[in-house]
């Protein structure tokens, strides 16, 4: 009997201590554990994932630009995290359910959002950019880590319905310090709920480096809850896809929750209100630029002659079209009338609020009468 458990992992969090199938230079490396999970993923499928990432990057660039132009109030960029978001979300079935955080534009994209579904909330027109029921995707969560519990609860519902759907939830390295994320892992493990935890370790929680949240690799925590985990290169879409297929298969086959730590980097600011030059070195950013999730896929596909200029041009054109659609739908958005702010607070009539609505309506009517005079 061991009386004292000591951390087994090296306390230093090394970003290269990850499962990887595609190096930053685009070299395909073998991995006995991961390879079987993507054995059927051919060049055409990989080109599809590349296209997804390119389109996502374009949506993200439009979001940033529209904020700078005053068309959206705030934007939380996902630049650099495309492989983590697309690689995980694309593995889900349409009838699975997703619980993302505010930065998971790629999850929302992969779940099928229309152009207006990316930034209606960021523009300040509504609190959700899309209908959660339509996308099988919960309202993007701003309260750090709160959605992980929702995901577990949804998975408990799936268990009671006796079906083989799964739930995935995304959260950052900072969220792992929250009680909710730890409680979510306790509940998920206790009930063997079919949920996949995707921790996007993008190295920063606004300005705080991951070392403030964790002294050892985050993936190492999950086994302590009784949840198997995998730590992958979050900029390697092959590794992320393999890990997510392993995790969803684990959850779908009734074995309970699984945990993925995707090690990546937030290339942009926390949000458009942030100034990362105050807390990050240029060198660090440059080093991560060389680990870009898109260029390595292109390099690999070119090396096996599965990526040509015509494909690149087609992706460029698709991205331009989507970018234009995102922009035009944003500019065409109309703001709801004043009185509508009192709608949908309750699902059933509430005499207190209904009364306020008549008061506000009467107040607004006063202006209308004045205008007529």
């Amino acid at each position, binding site marked *: 009997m061991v009386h004292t458990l000591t951390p087994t992992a090296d306390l230093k969090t090394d970003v290269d201590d990850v499962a990887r199938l595609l190096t930053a230079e685009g070299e395909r490396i073998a991995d006995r554990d991961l390879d079987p999970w993507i054995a059927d993923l051919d060049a055409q499928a990989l080109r599809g994932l590349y296209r997804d990432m390119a389109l996502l990057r374009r949506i993200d660039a439009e979001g940033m630009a529209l904020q700078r132009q005053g068309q959206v109030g705030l934007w939380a960029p996902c630049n650099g995290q495309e492989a983590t978001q697309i690689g995980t979300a694309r593995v889900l079935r349409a009838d699975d359910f997703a619980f993302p955080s505010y930065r998971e534009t790629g999850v929302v994209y992969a779940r099928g959002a229309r152009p207006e579904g990316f930034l209606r909330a960021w523009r300040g027109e509504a609190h959700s950019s899309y209908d959660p029921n339509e996308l099988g995707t919960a309202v993007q969560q701003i*309260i750090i880590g*709160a959605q992980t519990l929702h995901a577990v609860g949804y998975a408990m*519902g799936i268990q009671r319905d006796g079906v083989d759907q799964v739930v995935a939830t995304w959260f950052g390295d900072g969220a792992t310090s929250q009680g*909710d994320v730890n409680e979510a892992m306790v509940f998920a493990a206790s009930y063997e709920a079919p949920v996949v935890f995707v921790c996007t370790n993008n190295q920063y929680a606004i300005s705080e480096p991951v070392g403030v949240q964790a002294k050892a690799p985050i993936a190492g925590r999950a086994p302590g809850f009784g949840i198997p985990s995998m730590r992958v290169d979050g900029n390697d879409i092959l590794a992320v896809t393999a890990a997510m297929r392993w995790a969803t298969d684990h959850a779908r086959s009734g074995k309970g929750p699984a945990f993925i730590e995707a090690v990546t980097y937030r290339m942009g600011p926390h949000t458009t209100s942030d100034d990362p030059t105050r807390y990050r070195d240029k060198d660090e950013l440059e080093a991560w630029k060389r680990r870009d999730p898109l260029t390595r896929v292109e390099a690999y596909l070119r090396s096996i002659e599965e990526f040509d200029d015509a494909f690149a041009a087609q992706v460029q054109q698709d991205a331009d079209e989507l970018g234009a659609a995102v922009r035009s739908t944003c500019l065409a958005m109309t703001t709801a009338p004043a009185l509508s702010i009192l709608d949908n607070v*309750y*699902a*059933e009539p509430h005499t207190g609020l209904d009364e306020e609505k008549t008061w506000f309506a009467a107040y607004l009517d006063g202006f209308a009468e004045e205008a007529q005079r």
Partner: protein
Amino acid sequence: MTQLTMAKALNEGLRRAMADDDKVLVMGEDIGRLGGVFRITDGLQAEFGAQRIVDTPLAESGIMGTAVGLAYRGYRPVVEIQFDGFVYPAFDQIVSNVAKLHYRSQGAVKMPITIRIPWAGGVGAAEHHSESPEAYFVHTSGLRVVAVSNPQDAYTVLRQAIACDDPVVFFEPKRLYHTKGEVDLDTDLADAAPMGLARVARPGKDVTLITYGAQVSTAMDAATAAEDEGIDIEVIDLRSLSPIDYKAVTASVRKTGRVVVTHEAAREAGLGAEIIASVTERCFYHLETPPVRVTGWDIPYPPAKLEKHHVPDLDRILDAVDRVLDRPNSMSEVEL
């Protein structure tokens, strides 16, 4: 009609709600084999199984957060918070998610969650076991808040709360759990007074005494005592704290012109302040004297041996009644 304790009436309410709708499930700590620390879920796990009477890990935010997920999935979770003072770890999930998701999703996502809270003092409990946190929840839009005062309402309003598509915080006065009363278990919910309406617990013409929960009993005792002095008190049992039935409240105040509000929760920014402000706005010219609050002091809940000095009793209520009647009272010489 049958004589039941409030605890048993709640138990029956849960049983029938679960039998009627298989989407209803109950979650909480020790609610399974034990039947809950107050035995409100007694026998329910044996009847409905562990998938519907769910013993949870000991984490209130976890209970509330997973209830949100179950609601997303189409379930109607009833959450038991073991004691009033243990709801605070769940506060973030309640305020940020339970209360807001219907609004945030423009009505696409409903949160039909009933949050049952054994509530308030008077039972000689340890610290953190006698709190009255209702004002926090009343202040949070998106929540409905109810507080029951008798076995019949406990049964009926609980069933209405579970059937409601909005989240409902349901306060159960601990010191009335074992008080018996007539309960019609076959009451048709469609015929019952809708959730949200107040009840005239005792008609009267001299003073309107507004209260809710366990204080209703104390208010009734005060009214009986006042009768001996020829004072006719109308007792309003609010039942619903969000929304508040101002139609019933103002009808009474317009009749009596004198208002006392009593609750066990602290005075500052409490329900009494809100009620009196609204009453003053709506029927100022019907008021004969300034309305008065009789509440718990603005203190953390005191030790059990001293709680009788904190929870407003019959005498403190009658003292306030004297104030609104311009009769000699403890505040006669005090300048406010």
